[in-house]
């Protein structure tokens, strides 16, 4: 146990090229996923919070339910879409980082959208009359609410980043865990643990935990700063 731990620290301290490559790919996939999911999820969640339309309740329930979407199910669906016989098979995206980003975006969008809807809906109750008195359109209201809730929405984006970084099922299915190409931290940990290479698993696990902790610490301090500055 101690030897495993020491070897894991050694891999990290000498910046082992395999570890660095895996961490770097994980970071790129997570960043692309969160960027895409934020661009889709924030406005969509805010729109559901503010707009009145038939079936709004059903959309809200659906969004909330999709937060718990099993990642392997998403993996299989995206696999079918991108496989040779699927509608986008000709694009040759299966077993590529792009496929991993696509699958993770499907997983993360409902999470960000559902949390955004909740945060923005609470704010909307406070602002609705004031915005109507200023003759705001739906677009103006959504933009103003997203801006006003920006520090709370960091939590939604962060939850998306956490899900993306820790997700294993979908990226395993559509990425294939190909060494040096689609192997990310979670798939590498699963594989190396099965192979008995515990030092590498442990080293990657430590990086993963540190990343998640750093993200949350940053968000915590951002909120503190915002509360002091804006009340």
């Amino acid at each position, binding site marked *: 146990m101690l030897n495993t731990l020491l070897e894991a620290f050694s891999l990290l301290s000498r910046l082992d090229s395999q570890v660095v490559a895996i961490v770097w790919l994980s970071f790129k996939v997570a960043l692309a996923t969160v960027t895409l999911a934020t661009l889709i999820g924030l406005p969509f969640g805010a729109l559901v919070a503010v707009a009145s339309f038939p079936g709004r309740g059903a959309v809200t329930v659906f969004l909330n339910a999709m937060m718990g979407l099993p990642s392997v199910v998403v993996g299989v669906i995206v696999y079918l879409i991108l496989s040779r016989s699927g509608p986008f098979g000709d694009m040759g995206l299966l077993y590529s980082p792009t496929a991993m980003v696509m699958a993770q975006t499907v997983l993360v969008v409902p999470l960000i959208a559902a949390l955004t809807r909740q945060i923005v809906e609470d704010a909307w109750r406070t602002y609705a009359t*004031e915005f109507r008195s*200023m003759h705001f359109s739906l677009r103006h209201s959504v933009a*103003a609410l997203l801006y*006003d809730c920006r520090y709370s929405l960091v939590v939604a984006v962060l939850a998306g980043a956490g899900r993306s970084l820790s997700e294993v099922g979908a990226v395993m299915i559509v990425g294939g865990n190909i060494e040096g190409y689609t192997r990310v931290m979670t798939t590498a940990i699963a594989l190396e643990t099965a192979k008995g290479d515990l030092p590498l698993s442990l080293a990657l696990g430590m990086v993963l935990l540190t990343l998640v902790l750093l993200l949350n610490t940053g968000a915590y301090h951002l909120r503190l700063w915002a509360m002091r500055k*804006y*009340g």
Partner: protein
Amino acid sequence: MFPIQLSNIRFTPDGRTVLTGVDLDIDAEGITVIIGPNGAGKTVLLRIMAGLQTPHDGAINWNGDDNPATGIAMVFQHPVLLRSSVFHNAGLGLKPFGLSRAEAKRRTLQTLERVGLAHRAEDSARLLSGGERQRLALARAWAMRPQLLLLDEPTAALDPSATDVVEGIVREIRTDGTRIVMTTHNLGQAMRISDDIVFLANGRVIERAPTSRFFARPQSNEAKLFIQGELPWRISFDN
């Protein structure tokens, strides 16, 4: 001039009468103050005039239109300010106008100067004092250059000094050519600031008169009692 005509307005949520048989023409320049006891329907009447509440019966005509126009602005008793700078909040009402960035900035800064908040433009709006928040809300409405400005008890939570500043701004907005309708509980303020008074009680317009005449010779018994500080409404409620 921004005429509004309210004809036979009735507002009865859940069968409870808040307003009934209200006829009101707002067609002259100046400041009209709506006074009356708590629960008389002042705020609801103002919201109906702003188009924020739909009456259950009756008709409203905004400058010849059935829908409220962008020429109306409203300031609430407790204005809601975004978590942002004073400058950003002051210019918020200009978003639907589609002004150029430069024009919106110029108009916002000009209005902030007129309410005495230009030096705080970069500060956080939510950290302002009560009086400053109300001045900012007035600036936000004034920047929209409304033809009609509706003020719902804008000084209810302010001390006399802050009230005096707000009253000065309201007068200046009026001098700018904006028609003002406001509600207040403060009879002294109504006397100081208004050109005419609408006295509302139990959801009805009991009396409307020029300010000096209303306070010197109120026509109705209810208005007389209200000015004297007596509360027949509470007595009837208790009974």
